[in-house]
């Protein structure tokens, strides 16, 4: 250790100095108090041994200044003093001096004191190192948290939540939320919403839910349906999360055109649908294990559907909301939630629920992330199909070979297993002159393909859709016939023609079915569910023609202005 010895008597400096050096310590000398302070600041000794009475500045004052100058670094000061100076020493010990040795100095005691102080110095140093490391760790963690927060926000894509029918709110327990709400529309304007809740909260929980966002957004954009997206999300979660980690998930799909809500709930509290008077129309309980637990082959994809007729609020929340506890130990619970979020328009219901929770908690904080989404199920919220401009109605004459052709010929096996329209949409997305019109093209392809498959190959009659359970019955029958399909073929041909600098898309779909009586098409009845699809295609296309006995259909489509 480095020891500073301050004494005005040369004989003492010599005697104690020699002894200190003989113990193996490094010695620094000072002749008075002023010099002691200067040397101390320059040399930064581990211990200061100082005489009480010195010229220019006495030991007590020097000790005070040394302590002040050294700041947070602890430098023990030991006074070398005579018995008669005891009261002054006591005063000094209360402010700056750490220990003392009485004159005449007993070398055995001095040695023991130095050893004892050395122990304390080392302990001090260790604590200081640890606290420095802790401070550094804290700074780094804060910085990482800041970056993670930014990344999360980018990946979660907040602005996509600005759907006119969706009102939602997330309050993280830590700075990062383990709850995630994501929403997007398919090209066919079906609203997809997911609410995911990862284990715990903070960074690791946030990381757990992140793998879900990419398949959710990418596949929704390409028009995949709920079960396919779910399979991919499950695969992702299994792939990246360790055993014991999982994500509770509710996936909701709302088709405003066909007035259909479809829900898959794995580990999220009951999802409820309230009518405008606050009456409960439907409750979706958790029917599945959370994502990431079962092997992919065992994932149960069954969903529960509901056909709506009236305006209503669909309410989804994480358990953090129901289990939020006030100071009296009560939980917020489903009853309070039901009262708060029904019989008001969705946006006001959300605001009231947030207000009610805050009143209920009365300053207590939530121990888990809280998230709440209310979908305004409004049958009239069907986004109107854009009207075609007058000039777009007339299809210019065209002849000659197309610039490109894309042909698919699908047998029974492909029809059973392939997601045909999303597959073609992948191609459209890559075709520059058409990619901005992908919503229109998706609708045309979907309608023509579904017609060919359902009515042509599977020979389903649209009359089955009538009645309250009609749609459900129709979909079940469709799934059964498709699974059992042995024969049948659908040919799809897309061709791109250059017309006055624009790309015209020609879509031709042929099925192996018996065709149909086209006469009803001419006096189109919009009330019939089956007529709606073809009217839609007709509205979007420049021309629509049936050939043969009705099992070949061709639509020509000109993208609207490049806006």
């Amino acid at each position, binding site marked *: 250790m480095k020891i500073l010895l301050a004494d005005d008597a040369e004989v003492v400096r010599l005697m104690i100095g020699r002894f200190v050096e003989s113990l193996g310590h490094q010695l620094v000398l000072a002749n008075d108090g002023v010099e002691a302070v200067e040397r101390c600041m320059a040399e930064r000794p581990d211990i200061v041994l100082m005489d009480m009475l010195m010229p220019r500045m006495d030991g007590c004052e020097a000790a005070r200044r040394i302590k002040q100058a050294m700041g947070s670094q602890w430098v023990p000061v030991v006074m070398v003093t005579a018995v008669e100076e005891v009261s002054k020493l006591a005063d000094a010990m209360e402010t700056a001096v750490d220990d003392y040795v009485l004159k005449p100095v007993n070398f055995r005691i001095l040695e023991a004191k130095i050893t004892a102080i050395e122990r304390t110095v080392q302990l001090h140093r260790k604590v200081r190192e640890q606290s420095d490391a802790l401070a550094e760790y804290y700074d780094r963690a804060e910085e990482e948290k800041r970056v993670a927060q930014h990344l999360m926000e980018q990946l979660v894509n907040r602005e996509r939540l600005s759907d006119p029918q969706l009102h939602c709110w997330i309050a993280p327990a830590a700075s990062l939320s383990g709850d995630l709400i994501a929403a997007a529309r398919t090209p066919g304007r079906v609203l997809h919403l997911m609410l995911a809740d990862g*284990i*715990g909260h903070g960074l690791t929980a946030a990381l757990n839910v992140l793998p879900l966002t990419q398949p959710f957004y990418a596949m929704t954009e390409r028009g995949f349906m709920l079960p396919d997206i779910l399979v991919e999300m499950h695969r992702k979660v299994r792939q990246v999360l360790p*055993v014991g*980690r999982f994500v509770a998930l509710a996936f909701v799909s709302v088709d405003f055109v066909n007035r259909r809500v479809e829900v898959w709930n*794995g580990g999220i509290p009951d999802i409820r649908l309230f009518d405008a008077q606050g009456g409960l129309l439907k409750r979706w309980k958790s029917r599945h*294990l*959370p994502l990431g*637990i079962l092997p992919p082959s065992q994932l149960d994809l069954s969903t529960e559907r509901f056909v709506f007729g009236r305006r209503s609020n669909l309410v989804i929340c994480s358990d953090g909301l129901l289990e939020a506890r006030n100071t009296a130990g009560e939980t917020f619970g489903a009853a309070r939630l039901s009262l708060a979020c029904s019989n008001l328009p969705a946006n006001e219901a959300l605001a009231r629920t947030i207000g009610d929770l805050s009143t209920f908690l009365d300053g207590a904080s939530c121990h888990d992330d809280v998230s709440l989404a209310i979908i305004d199920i409004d049958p009239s919220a069907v986004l109107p199909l854009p009207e075609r401009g007058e000039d777009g109605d007339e299809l210019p004459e065209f002849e000659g070979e197309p610039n490109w052709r894309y042909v698919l010929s699908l047998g029974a096996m492909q029809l059973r297993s392939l997601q045909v329209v999303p597959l073609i949409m992948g191609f459209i997305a890559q075709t520059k002159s058409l990619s901005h019109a992908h919503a229109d093209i998706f609708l045309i392809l979907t309608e023509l393909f579904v017609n060919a498959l359902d009515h042509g190959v599977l020979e389903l009659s649209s009359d089955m859709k009538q009645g309250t359970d009609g749609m459900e019955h129709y979909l079940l029958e469709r799934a059964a016939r498709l699974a059992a399909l042995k024969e049948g073929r659908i040919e799809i041909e897309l061709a791109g023609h250059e017309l006055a600098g624009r790309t015209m898309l020609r879509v031709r779909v042929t099925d192996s079915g018996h065709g149909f009586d086209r006469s009803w098409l001419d006096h189109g009845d919009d009330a019939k569910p089956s007529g709606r699809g073809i009217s839609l295609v007709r509205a979007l296309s420049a021309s629509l023609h049936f050939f043969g006995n009705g099992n070949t259909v061709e639509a020509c489509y000109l993208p609207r202005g490049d806006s």
Partner: protein
Amino acid sequence: MTALVEIDGQTGRLLLTGQFDFSAHRDFRQASDELLGAAAVHDILVDFQQVDYLDSSALGMLLLLKEKSAAAGKTLALVNCRDTVRQVLEIACFGKIFTIR
């Protein structure tokens, strides 16, 4: 939370008390390792009689224990699940992969 181990013949019981959440991680692992390591134990019972609450990290720990007990050739059951505990297990649909009594 505390986790006590009781071994009676082939049956090893894990008695949990209090709130079962992430803070219970170390205690739960030590206690379950003790049961997993006991050669005589064939059936592991996790007893929730004294548990008032469990959260999603507790569910994660149960999944880990399930993996480990299957690897060790032991059966696993969750017993005496009441009120909140039962409700949380139900929402997570754990009845599909665990024996709950």
